[in-house]
């Protein structure tokens, strides 16, 4: 039994503590509070299309959403105030470095592409392109990329079209092959 020692995180190319800071905890806390504030405002706006009062039969359709929105906005303000009070400590705490941000974005954007391509191309073709691209891009070679993409398509086709009888979206390729 061989047991490698050492921690598992420090792979090559991982900047770790040396990563140039991009976002401090303070900044992210404030962004988070702003998002909650905006969400609360949206909910209130939606609730105002209905009666938000309190009738004889208790709350009306808009009552709950309205107060949820109000509570969300109040909580957002409280969170922002709490963060600003500790601004020095939180400002020094880095939650996202530049390298980490790039890695995250490089992972997130292809998912967005996969989602965007699913309806026009069908999920099978989209997942093939996505997997092929990701595996190639991370330098695992053409063979690994083709094997991953084809294996995923074949497995999911068998599993969902035949086994679970839960058809996934198909596109022009399937129509061309007479499989749609």
């Amino acid at each position, binding site marked *: 039994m061989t047991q490698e020692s050492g921690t598992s995180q420090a792979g090559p190319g991982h900047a770790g503590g040396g990563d140039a800071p991009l976002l401090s905890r303070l900044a992210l806390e404030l962004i988070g509070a702003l998002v909650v504030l905006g969400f609360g405002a949206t909910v209130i706006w939606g*609730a105002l299309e209905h009666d938000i009062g309190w009738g004889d039969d208790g709350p009306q359709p808009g009552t709950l959403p309205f107060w949820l929105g109000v509570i*969300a906005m109040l909580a957002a303000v409280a969170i922002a105030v709490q963060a600003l009070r500790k601004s020095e400590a939180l400002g020094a705490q880095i939650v996202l470095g530049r390298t980490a941000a790039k890695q995250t974005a490089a*992972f997130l954007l292809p998912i967005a592409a996969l989602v965007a391509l699913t309806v026009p191309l069908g999920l099978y073709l989209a997942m093939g392109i996505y997997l092929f691209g990701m595996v190639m891009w991370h330098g695992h070679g053409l063979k690994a990329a083709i094997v991953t993409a084809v294996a995923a398509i074949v497995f999911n086709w068998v599993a969902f079209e035949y086994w679970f009888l839960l058809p996934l979206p198909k596109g022009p390729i399937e129509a061309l092959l007479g499989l749609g």
Partner: protein
Amino acid sequence: MENLEALMHGFSVAISFQHIALMIGGVLLGILVGVLPGLGAPNGVTLLLPLTFSMDPVSAIILLTSTYWGALFGGSTTSILFNIPGEPSSVATTFDGHPMARQGKATEALTTAFLSAGFGAFVGIVVITLLSGFVTSFALRFAPPEYFAVYFLAFASFVAFGGGAPMKTVVSIVTGFALATVGMDIVSGGMRLTFDMPELIRGVSFLVVVIGLFGIGELLLTMEDSLEFKPVATTLSPKRVLAAACALPRHWVALARSATVGIWMGITPGGPTAASFMSYGLARRFSRNGANFGRGEPEGVVSPETADHAAGTAAMLPMLALGIPGSATAAVMLGGLMIWGLNPGPMLFIEQRDFVWGMIASMYLSNIVAVVLVLATVPLFAAILRLPFTIVAPLIVVVCTISAWSVASAGFDLWLMLVFGLVGWGMKKLDYPIAPLVLAMVIGDKAEDAFRQSMIISHGSFGVFWSNPLVGGIATLGLALLLWPVVSMVLRKMRRAA
């Protein structure tokens, strides 16, 4: 004795070729999900949920619960071998489990972890068996005010025991509730928060939200750490497994204490993650070997594992009996229950005896299946981890995408998944608790209905929540818990001033 009879009836429902096959399949899938970081028990169960729509409820719940047990076990495997917790609830297992593995005692660490986990689960199920009969005795006294009081209690205890910043827990609950109100209002028939978008008329599915928050969100976090798996050769010799199993009873104090902590945290909605940390903390504080903790002390593996699984199984009781899920995974299962047309609550124990007792009986069996399978498959799953994560992660994304699609066959849901992936990333970064959001989404509608029905009964008076000792007791307890953070802060300030 009535319970024993019901349990035997449950076994007669649960033991069939199809159900055993579902248990094995569910446990294996669960272990896979648990082993892969970025996929956790809530995901595994969410991903399988659409497939259960055509099953009968007993088969469906057996598949989902088996997956849950498998995921809980699988998470410990990676914690011990690679120092990568496959599950949030197995983080505490890394503290002593990985040092043990590094000292060449991987077999001992894994065996100890799995058997203590199995013990914790067993105690949890026994408690469920004993308490289930009691639940039926007050089933018929539950009316809308009681239901609302119980929902209120669930949310209040998240605020009090959830561990996160109370304001952030509130945001999480409010967001979940608000998302639950999207779509048609059952009482008035009006469209709420749809902003004239046709995609929003059917509401926001909690499944899509969970896939985004847990699945995509976790992956984004993992990617940022540029996680690399270290190849580790893993073989388990049966002799050492047996030796470790024989050594387990020596830790009986830790086993008993951790099981108690786990059951308490499972029944109150603390959840397995909180239970495992709390149990580890208590063990380090009170154990005679406390000084060795963090350096490969077996008791440091026993304590979190036992509590983790005791909490996981115990969480099923409040889920069935009150509609309060004790963990995020239980919250997803609760959603499943409603989709299958079952109404969680005390009445379930009277009207759906086959379902309830079949599920409880299956829990005894599937945990045994899980312990055996997880030991047998350690080499296999350790091999999967030798695949580069840069190949595994895109595959997980594809699985998430398929699952999000299968909920309602809507492209819009895929975008929702992506947005909630980002939201999940931010929530994790900023320590917003996610479980209350899921809970609020699942029972938000029911809580609002119960509240509005109570108000119709009482003509708008809150007195209805204190109209009899049962509802009054629950409501008062809920209020007390909600105010707990404030009270404890005031007390602390007073003590400091004195």
